[in-house]
């Protein structure tokens, strides 16, 4: 009887340990986003990607619809080529959709924001977004502001 109680307690303990591990894996880590390899991929070229990284979110109207799959540098066009993986249920993006690199808040994480266009055809696997807007680099903005101020004085 006593050993049965001990075994039950140990069983509960082990179950609790595994439950805690899976809760951590599923609820607070990005394990789920590793698995969703089923989306379709589209790419876009940017002059400057700022602080964008692999697995950064791709959003439309603030809603996350995919993630950045890979970032490469094109040696001929001197641009960064960002491949995005879009979840399969969001398959109605017109071919003239535009992409911009935006920042969540003033100093937050950078993500890609898509702006749907008006064409009748939709982007599919391997599609390319032509209209892009680079990341805003804070130093450049401040630099331009200072130059324009200096010009005004002269």
């Amino acid at each position: 009887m006593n050993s049965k109680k001990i075994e039950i307690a140990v069983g509960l303990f082990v179950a609790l340990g595994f439950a805690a591990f899976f809760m951590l894996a599923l609820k607070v880590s990005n394990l789920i986003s590793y698995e969703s390899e089923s989306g379709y991929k589209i790419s876009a070229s940017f002059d400057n990607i700022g602080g964008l990284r692999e697995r950064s979110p791709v959003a439309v109207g603030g809603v996350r619809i995919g993630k950045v799959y890979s970032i490469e540098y094109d040696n001929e066009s001197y641009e960064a080529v960002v491949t995005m993986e879009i979840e399969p249920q969001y398959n109605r993006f017109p071919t003239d959709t535009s992409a911009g690199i935006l920042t969540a808040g003033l100093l937050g994480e950078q993500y890609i924001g898509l702006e749907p266009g008006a064409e009748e055809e939709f982007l599919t696997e391997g599609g390319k977004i032509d209209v892009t807007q680079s990341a805003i680099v804070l130093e450049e903005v401040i630099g331009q502001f200072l130059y324009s101020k200096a010009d005004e004085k002269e």
Partner: protein
Amino acid sequence: MNVLDKLQKLGQSVISVFSRLGQATLFLYEILLTIPGLLLRPSLVIKQLYTTGVQTLVIILVAGCFVGMVLALQAYYVLVDFGAEDSISQMVVLTLMRELGPVMTGLLFAGRAGSALTAEIGLMKSTEQLSGMEMMAIDPMQRVMAPRILAGFLAMPLLTAVFMAVGVLGGYLVAVHGVGIFEGVYWSLAQLKVDFYTDLMNGMIKSVVFGFVIVWIAVFEGYDSVPTSEGLGQATTRTVVHSSLAVLGLDFLLTAIMFGDI
């Protein structure tokens, strides 16, 4: 002459440190050899899992909850100045997974389970239960030491996972119900930043290493203790001190290897 005496003392202590290290390694080797035979009798391990794992669970649950809540409060205090208080969860989860989870669990485990192991084995030695077993042709390494080592090795990662999870929930309580972060923001920002392999799995690897070292020290100190009441007390103290230091030192080493780009 006086100088020579001091030199002799220094040499003596260095030699004794290394000879104890060697003894401990041989001791561990001897135990590891008996583990395959032990797998035929899992009930011994289950009994030890109860004393090292289940009985440590309460302190782990309470400590984890408080550590998580304090982390969230302190993170809020700093982050609110930058308007970045939404990132509380990232700070809480990353700190717990990378460092505090394994290290705090290790320290608590050394204090709660390690000291008990040393005292138990030391008492077995001083009351000549171990030599009694040998007389009866029962190998105390297999019967007494190996189940304890194996149980501690299994219990530590489970306890660490519980500590992390409870800490995250404690942080959630403070962040969402205390300072008013939105619930969805808490979980989704953590998912954005926390990587399953680099953060969670590395934390679990740390906990496995710590658990192994702690039970090794605890069981060896008990086996090696001077069989008097004073010697037993000293052995228990040494277990707690040495395993705590080992946990902290190894943590630095593992952090440097895992996250340090060295």
